């Protein structure tokens, strides 16, 4: 049992032992606080074998002779630094007050074993405790405290080693005060203390050069203004009133657009606006003015002379802002230096890269927040639609930054202000107050942004819910769904009530003309129909057939699941499907658009069962020219469900000649001709990095390997017929409903998008890219071949794909007739019809087609242009999000696989350089399908015009250019603060960048 004692506090010294101060609460109330302080004589000095403190300091770490290796102090010395090797408590507390993360790092430093550092608690030692005098600033008070501690130490040393009679007094180590504050030094000298500035101290050290370099960034010997001076200043300019914004946008003085953050540089953003070819560049926080990714903002564009080029540099928010303190928004801290430095670099960079200049401006107001959008009341058809259409993401998946915590004590009950770092690099850190901070460290959490005040550097938010441990699959999966705003809730009762009451037992009723199910349906049950899909596919939307007609032509049919038979307009199920927009495929999970009963059973065109279908049947000439096309609702019975591989094997097996195999061969021949025709018309053969994840087993689902997807002839077979069906349907519904047909288009990319790629290709490889038309582009892409590097062509295709716009759904009446075209497919008109189970646009196309052939009247909502537009807006967004979610899921598993491999071996992969930065490289690892960044800590030469960087290594200069093949070391590193796993790449060939 430890000794329990009562600490006596002498009442007579109440001035020293009691402290009275006023503080302002969060709500702005001023309250008086009284605290007491117990002064003691047993605060150890930390010097080994000190005779005065022997009883209290068993673990004293400082050698009794002091440090002997500094030439200026031959008798040995101890260093007592001011703000920044005795640390006094005053210093520690001031650091803590200024920046918690810095304090936490300092604490770790003190604890490190090999450091001779002792924290002296001067404020609790009776001799050294001081009281703030009237009209004394906190800074001066602290300085005085440090001086007092210094003089006490000197005194203490001489007392602890009294001269022994008869012997000469041993030389006493000196306690040296280290401070950069001139005023403090002067006062100390007056008091007879030895003190030096950090620079002087380091200069006279033996190995001073290296240390001086580190000091270079530190300013001169002047007194640094305390953060309190700058307190509560507005950090951002005020927004203009909404009326002014709208008027400005109308008159053309301001421009409206959506804010895009730069994922490489958090201090840069851009806003694509209508008036300019290139997006408007926003440089620095002040000009971005609190805009968050996706906000609709109004920007003011500067005069052309102030235009800048984007800075090709990676500026990592986490690295630069690690000392920022969650508690005080107004503390400028050391980030200022970084920003200032950046600014000067901008000025430099303008000259060489004058050609890269783009309109530059600043945000003057937010028209609509992405995270706080104001719902407009609209004359929608039903209230349900309203909710769906204006659904916005306002929630972000985050991690807690552990160094921003005041206390990591898991039992702490107090509310803390901490930083949450969003998983997406496009979002700023969010400051939030929570009582659960310690338990949330290492978890993925959901955070909502509430507001962003002018005076606050970061937006403020609140904690919504924890998703689970970082790196746990459940948490990662859920966070992924939330991040991309995928609605993954279970289907509600109202929705499930829309399903057929028979459930799984529903069958196509026996043929009977009176039966509603058979109304206007063709009986195609005898046709030899089969489906070809990826392995493990459960939601089979499409099936095919082909047979020779007596006249020598060929009849080919595409049969699509008749989803619109089950999903009726204006029902809860329809609304939900519209809101979901699409089925989302993740590596290990599928989030359905329609309840599983429909998706994987009733609508799925499974083999050997009768199913309702919507058929497109062509009569094609042997040259694959369309002679006739008709559309009909039908009943089919698929004869078999193949995988691509099985179909391929069957087709290639010469020994087989049954009807089914013949039909596949027939389809394949036609598909080849169709493809030829398409290519001749100028369709693009684009590439995107697609990889496949092998899961170990169903239970553990640990990925064991990553491989690139293989494409077979049969993939192309299915693709061609689907394209044909979509085009035929698009023409039909466009003819019937010219105002409201649901179509899909791919706009030709603006030529400027290709400028950079063209320039790189020309300068690095001497190749040209003709972008005058899709046909020309396709042709010139075929020319971009490096005989020694087969993957080069794929790389160029990937990069070209990135220059293009994304395809989108649109309502035919909303855009000009001449913009209907699909650039990538080189088709004048296109829609989506073939996957109604997993895409909502297809359901709409089905309804329109059914109306077009007189099968059923068109629901009123599909006659309304504005209504169709609104639904398609949502579907477009969902579609984009679903793609990103799918990609992110693959990335996560690639990360896991890498981690697994990384544990066994160092992972070194081939990579292509795709971008050069002022301080790094962007590389693409084709085998893993991931992109990564290699950054250099050392200064490197960057040639923006020639897309090269030159790295000094071992005396020689190594130049790396875009398109160069390098080897990179891939690792998955866990961020210490946020616990966020991220792929880190380092160059291993031609040079090892780790040493740089």
């Amino acid at each position: 049992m430890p000794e329990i004692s009562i600490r006596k506090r002498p009442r007579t010294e109440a001035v020293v032992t009691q402290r009275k101060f006023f503080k302002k609460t969060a709500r702005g109330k001023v309250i008086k606080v009284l605290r007491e302080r117990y002064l003691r004589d047993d605060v150890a000095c930390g010097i080994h074998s000190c005779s005065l403190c022997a009883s209290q300091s068993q673990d004293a770490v400082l050698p009794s002779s002091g440090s002997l290796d500094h030439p200026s102090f031959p008798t040995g010395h101890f260093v007592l630094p001011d703000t920044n090797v005795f640390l006094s408590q005053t210093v520690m507390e001031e650091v803590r007050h200024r920046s918690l993360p810095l304090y936490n790092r300092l604490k770790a430093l003190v604890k490190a074993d090999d450091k001779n550092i002792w924290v002296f608690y001067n404020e609790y030692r009776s001799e050294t405790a001081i009281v703030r005098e009237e009209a004394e600033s906190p800074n001066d008070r602290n300085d005085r405290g440090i001086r007092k501690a210094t003089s006490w130490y000197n005194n203490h040393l001489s007392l602890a080693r009294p001269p022994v009679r008869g012997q000469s007094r041993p030389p006493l180590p000196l306690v040296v005060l280290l401070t950069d504050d001139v005023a403090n030094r002067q006062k100390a000298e007056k008091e007879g203390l030895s003190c030096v500035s950090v620079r002087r101290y380091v200069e006279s050290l033996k190995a001073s050069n290296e240390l001086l370099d580190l000091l270079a960034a530190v300013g001169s010997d002047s007194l640094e203004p305390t953060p309190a001076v700058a307190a509560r200043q507005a950090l951002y300019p005020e927004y203009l009133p909404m009326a002014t914004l709208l008027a400005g946008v109308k008159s053309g003085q301001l421009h409206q657009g959506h804010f895009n953050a730069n994922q490489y540089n958090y201090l840069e953003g851009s806003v694509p606006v209508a008036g300019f070819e290139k997006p408007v560049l926003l440089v620095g926080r002040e000009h971005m003015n609190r805009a968050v990714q996706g906000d609709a903002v109004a920007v003011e564009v500067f005069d052309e002379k102030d235009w800048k080029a984007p800075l090709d540099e990676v500026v990592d928010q986490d690295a630069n802002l690690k000392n920022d303190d969650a508690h005080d928004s107004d503390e400028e801290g050391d980030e200022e230096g970084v920003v200032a430095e950046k600014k000067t670099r901008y000025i430099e960079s303008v000259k060489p890269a004058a050609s890269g200049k783009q309109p530059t401006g600043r945000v003057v107001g937010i028209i609509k927040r992405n995270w706080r959008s104001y719902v407009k009341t609209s004359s929608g058809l039903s209230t349900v639609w309203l909710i769906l259409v204006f659904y916005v993401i306002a929630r972000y998946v985050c991690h807690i930054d552990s160094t921003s915590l005041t206390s990591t004590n898991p039992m702490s009950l107090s509310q803390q202000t901490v930083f949450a770092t969003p998983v997406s690099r496009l979002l700023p850190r969010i400051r939030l107050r929570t009582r659960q901070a310690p338990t949330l460290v290492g978890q993925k959490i959901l955070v909502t942004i509430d507001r962003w005040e002018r005076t606050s550097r970061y937006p403020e938010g609140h904690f919504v819910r924890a998703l689970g441990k970082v790196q746990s699959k459940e948490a990662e999966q859920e966070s992924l769904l939330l991040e991309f705003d995928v609605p993954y809730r279970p289907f509600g009762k109202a929705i499930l009530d829309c399903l057929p009451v028979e459930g799984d037992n529903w069958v196509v009723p026996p043929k009977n003309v009176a039966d509603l199910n058979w109304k206007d349906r063709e009986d195609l049950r005898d046709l030899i129909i089969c489906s070809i899909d990826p392995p493990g596919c459960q939601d089979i939307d499409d099936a095919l057939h082909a047979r020779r007609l007596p006249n020598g032509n060929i009849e080919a049919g595409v049969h699509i699941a008749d989803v619109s038979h089950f999903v009726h307009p204006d029902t809860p199920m329809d609304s939900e499907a519209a809101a979901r927009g699409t089925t989302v495929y993740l590596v290990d999970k599928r989030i359905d658009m329609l309840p599983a009963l429909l998706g994987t059973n009733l609508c799925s065109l499974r083999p050997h069962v009768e199913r309702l279908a919507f058929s497109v049947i062509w009569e094609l000439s042997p040259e694959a020219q369309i002679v006739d096309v008709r559309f009909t609702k039908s009943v089919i019975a698929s004869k078999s469900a193949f995988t691509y591989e099985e179909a391929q094997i069957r087709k290639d097996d010469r020994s087989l000649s049954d009807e089914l195999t013949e039909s596949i061969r027939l389809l394949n021949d036609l598909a080849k001709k169709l493809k030829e025709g398409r290519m001749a018309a100028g369709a693009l053969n684009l590439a995107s990095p697609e990889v496949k994840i092998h899961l170990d087993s169903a239970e553990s689902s640990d990925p064991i390997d990553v491989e690139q997807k293989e494409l077979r002839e049969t993939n192309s077979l299915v693709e061609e017929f689907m394209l044909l069906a979509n085009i035929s349907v698009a023409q039909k519904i466009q003819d019937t409903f010219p105002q409201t047909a649901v179509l899909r288009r791919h706009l030709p990319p603006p030529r400027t998008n290709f400028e950079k790629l063209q320039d790189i290709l020309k300068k690095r490889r001497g190749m040209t890219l003709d972008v005058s038309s899709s046909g020309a582009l396709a042709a010139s892409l075929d020319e971009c071949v490096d005989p020694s590097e087969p993957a080069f062509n794929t790389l160029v295709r990937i990069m070209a794909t990135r220059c293009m716009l994304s395809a989108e759904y649109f309502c035919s009446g909303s855009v000009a007739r001449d913009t209907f075209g699909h650039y990538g497919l080189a088709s004048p008109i296109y829609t989506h019809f073939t996957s109604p189970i997993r895409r909502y646009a297809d359901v709409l196309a089905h309804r329109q087609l059914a109306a077009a052939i007189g099968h059923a009247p068109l629901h009123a909502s599909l006659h309304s242009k504005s209504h169709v537009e609104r639904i398609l807006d949502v579907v477009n967004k969902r579609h984009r999000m679903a793609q990103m979610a799918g990609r992110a899921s693959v990335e996560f598993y690639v990360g896991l696989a890498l981690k697994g491999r990384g544990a066994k071996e160092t992972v070194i992969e081939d990579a292509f350089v795709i971008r050069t930065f002022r301080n790094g490289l962007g590389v693409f690892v084709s085998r893993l399908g991931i992109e990564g960044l290699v950054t250099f800590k050392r200064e490197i030469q960057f040639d923006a015009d020639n897309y090269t960087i030159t790295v000094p290594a071992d005396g020689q200069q190594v130049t790396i250019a875009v398109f160069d093949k390098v080897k990179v070391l891939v690792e998955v590193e866990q961020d210490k603060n946020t616990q966020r796993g991220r792929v880190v790449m380092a160059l291993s060939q031609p040079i090892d960048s780790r040493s740089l």
Partner: protein
Amino acid sequence: MSSRIEILNDGGFRSDGRKQYELRDVLIDLSQQGTADGSAQISHGLTQVLVTVFGPREAKMRSHTLHDRAVLNVEMSVAPFSTGERRKRSKADRRILEMASMIASTFEPVVQTTLYPRSQIDIYVHVLQQDGSLLPACINATTLALITAGVPLHDFVCAVTGGVHSTSPLLDLTTVEENDIPHMTVAVMPRTQKVTLVTMETRLHVERFRELFELACEAGQTIHKEMKLAVKDRTVVLVGAMDAGLKGVAVDDRDRDVVMEDRI
């Protein structure tokens, strides 16, 4: 500001310079308070409580008497100036009511109430300053006030708070500490070493509880020593005064007699 304070720093010091097992300065004043039969003012650091005891005396309301013992009536009031933020607290505040009822039930088995059937002992608790460990201060002051009033007790009741910061137990918590860490109050009877009150309202693991509980019981003994010393000192002063001369004291005694007569 409060979140800026480290509860226990690496040097083993708490925010006010104490170490883990050090209690705050205890100051006891047992001087006479007006017409009260017994009174005690105690401060644990900056927490200051004054308790006055009246009785045993005849109950004001007959319905509230018990035929076989005295009834303890505890009333508690918190001075508006006791905290930094001035706020008038009503006496019917549930926290205050609960604390009063806890004090009453703590002392019911300790006071030898059976000696005073059909009477009432009034205990008025005034909180003058608050800086954590309020309930222990009230209990300790009540013990002392009952002693100075000459009410027979089975034993002292000595209370103390304890808390756990991460895994380190702390004793005698200030407000800052109470707001941040799980804590409990324990009242012990030092002679029998028995516990008469334990309360805890925050989450704490059983093992930690055990550790802290034993420590707090021990700390009760330390408080007891201090309280006993104060009682002895006062007795010495009283005896000294009686010995010094009968004049001055006689007047007092006569007054006292009058009061006693009034009561009977």
